[in-house]
């Protein structure tokens, strides 16, 4: 498990020892580790912003030149470097063959520009079970990633809803 487990826990956060043990695969854990994972730091590069804007077919001039902004979904490029993907699934045993990305939310607090140095850390925000429309249980996992800039300001949050289906994922 990650080094984050040796860090002090904030009040109200589950202790690492209560995180779900190995071998479990179905049903919501009785408790799960809500603590933030190890942060990663990335410099926002102009070339990456241009590459991303081209890939999403967005020619908005705001994403080019001096004072360029990063497009709204650009944070995905950093998320893929975080342990466990988009934030803090490190303490949950999930079956990726049955896992769907159900929802994605971004909250923007400060502009993000090339030259910014963003530190991202992720956590599991919530885990719960629901009955599926076609029978069977669905396990919902909400992960949250916080992006802080070089001035120590929170620039954005990203929240992903992952759904583990009981059977194989259907098209």
């Amino acid at each position, binding site marked *: 498990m990650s080094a984050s487990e040796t860090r002090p826990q904030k009040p109200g956060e589950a202790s690492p020892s209560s995180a779900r043990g190995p071998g479990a695969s179905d049903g919501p854990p009785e408790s799960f580790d809500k603590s933030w994972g190890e942060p990663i730091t990335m410099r926002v590069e102009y070339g990456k912003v241009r590459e991303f804007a081209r890939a999403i077919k967005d*020619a908005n001039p705001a994403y080019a030149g001096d004072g360029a902004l990063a497009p709204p979904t650009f944070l995905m490029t950093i998320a893929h470097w975080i342990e466990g993907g988009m934030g803090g699934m490190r303490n949950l045993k999930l079956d990726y063959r049955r896992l769907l*990305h159900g929802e994605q939310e971004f909250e923007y607090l400060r502009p993000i520009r090339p030259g910014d140095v963003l530190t991202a850390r992720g956590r599991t925000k919530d885990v719960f079970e629901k009955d599926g429309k076609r029978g069977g249980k669905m396990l919902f996992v909400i992960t949250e990633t916080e992006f802080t800039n070089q001035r120590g300001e929170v620039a954005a949050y990203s929240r992903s809803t992952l759904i583990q289906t009981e059977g194989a994922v259907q098209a």
Partner: protein
Amino acid sequence: MSVRRYFQDVTEGEELPPVVVENLSRTDLVRYAGASGDFNPIHHDEEFAHVAGQPSVFGHGMLTAAFVGRCVTDFVGPDSLRRLKVRFATRVWPGDTIVSMGKVTRKYEADGERRIDGEVQAVNQKGEVAVSGSFTAALPSRG
């Protein structure tokens, strides 16, 4: 392209101009995989997709989400966006044409900002919803 839009110029129920992406190609998917770092083979490896029971590779949900994001930022300007939320529904396949559209649902003031909320969705050429969602933006005030 984005034009500076003022709070006073926007009305509840106003529709966002649609953004059309025609005939999405496998190259588009590979380009997005490289740009985003999402190398799940289901989006670029035809053989892998077949073994997984899929008729072909299919698009990254976040690529369609980006088209929806563009529909919003073309309207409000990228620096005005405060929140964007999307829900993934039908998959997007090579050859699909995706139309992103939306409308303003609410105008209000909060946290000292003049804000609008809206709904967005991306539909394919059959009219099936690929992505639906919502947004919040803070607009400048005239005077």
